[in-house]
């Protein structure tokens, strides 16, 4: 009985802290997105403007986001039935936006970032009695080419 209560406690703590962390993270993401809105990020390989490039540089953003206990349990149960992993989607969204933001924050001097690419990998914990690795966190890696155009008339 106490073991069940212990799991329930972990569950409640995981949900509470996880929800607070997620809300704070999203608030932080939105604030920083607003602050860097003037730096456009494009997936195109070609520079879409007929301007001369003064400076270009590879910029990267890397982030690892972990799941809380609550999400882990719900996701494991959900994987039994199949369907949309709704709780996982916020994790992926947060990871992707944070990685792009970090990449943008590396190039405050740039006019534009082109050729944006995103890579995802699962960071798995391995059980003591299991050979299978389990997804407990995800890593998001964003990279692109930051460009500064030559000023007109120079």
């Amino acid at each position, binding site marked *: *009985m106490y*073991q*069940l209560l212990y*799991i329930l406690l972990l569950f409640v703590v995981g*949900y509470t802290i996880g*929800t607070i962390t997620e809300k704070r993270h*999203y608030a932080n993401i*939105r604030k920083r*997105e*607003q602050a860097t*809105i*003037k730096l*456009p990020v*494009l997936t195109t390989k070609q520079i*879409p*403007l007929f301007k001369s490039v003064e400076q270009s540089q590879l910029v990267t953003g890397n982030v690892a986001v972990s799941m809380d*206990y*609550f*999400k*882990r*349990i*719900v996701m*494991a*149960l*959900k994987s*039994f*039935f199949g369907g*949309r992993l*709704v*709780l996982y*989607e*916020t994790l992926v*969204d947060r990871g992707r*936006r944070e990685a792009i933001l970090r990449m943008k924050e590396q190039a405050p001097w740039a006019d*534009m970032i082109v050729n944006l690419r995103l890579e995802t990998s699962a960071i798995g914990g391995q*059980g*003591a*009695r*299991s050979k*299978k690795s*389990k997804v407990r966190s995800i890593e998001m890696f964003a990279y692109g080419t930051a460009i500064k155009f030559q000023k007109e008339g120079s």
Partner: protein
Amino acid sequence: MRIIPKNPDDTVNIPKHHPLLEFLKVFLGFTIFLVIAYFVLGFVVNFVTPHISHDTEQKIAKTIYRTHKYECPNVYPEQQQWLQEQLNKLVSFWSDAPSFPLTVCIRKMSTRNAFAGPGGFITFSSEFFKPGASENEIIMVLSHEMGHYAHRHHLKSLGHTLGFLLLSVTLFDMDSEVTQLVSKFTHVGSRQYSQAEEKEADLFGLNLFVQYFGHAGGATDFFLQEQKLKEKENRNPSLIHQFTSTHPTYKKRVQAMDHWIHKHGYEKKRITYLPENLFID
């Protein structure tokens, strides 16, 4: 080309579902699945168990004892010999007795307790041989343990445990949080199942007891004493404890046995006290 700066649209990639609602949906679905699996497994185990021969049961027990060897310390040879004789006498009243021998072993324990292990090994607490003890209490407890063999509770319990473990491991992996969670929930479920088994063993034991003594006097003494002891220690179990306990409360057991005694018109005659030479101080 004109580039219009825009923040990501939160309405597209962030799901609108509330996490708790998502959890409730998944939890409800999974609970329904577990309940169905539990009953199906119970039905299969109860159907298959009676068809398993005593030889096969003995082979299973041998496999268990290969890793957990059963050894009797024989600390109380006189009492053990007496108890074994009573056990053999009880077996003679039992028409469908298993083909393997039943063996009893007295061990030093601080409480009055007994349990029936796989393969016919019954362990008895030395506390039953305290001065003033009656043969009736001992015979009732012994025949109750024999009831577990009669209803093949070991095999059923093994079947339930193995079935659920296999299901959990197949679906979620051995050390998954879900497997641990499932095992905790089924543990509570198996406790309820275990309470039903205890009642079955009580009634079997009572019938054997009546055949042994010719009456039902003293059959409920042990349970009444334990109940009084708990009341004295103010250890009346809470509802949660009753639900999660392997054994039903002593009060319920006495009630069920008294009902059985009344139903079958068994007489209650004087109890037989244990000879002094068998007392363990």
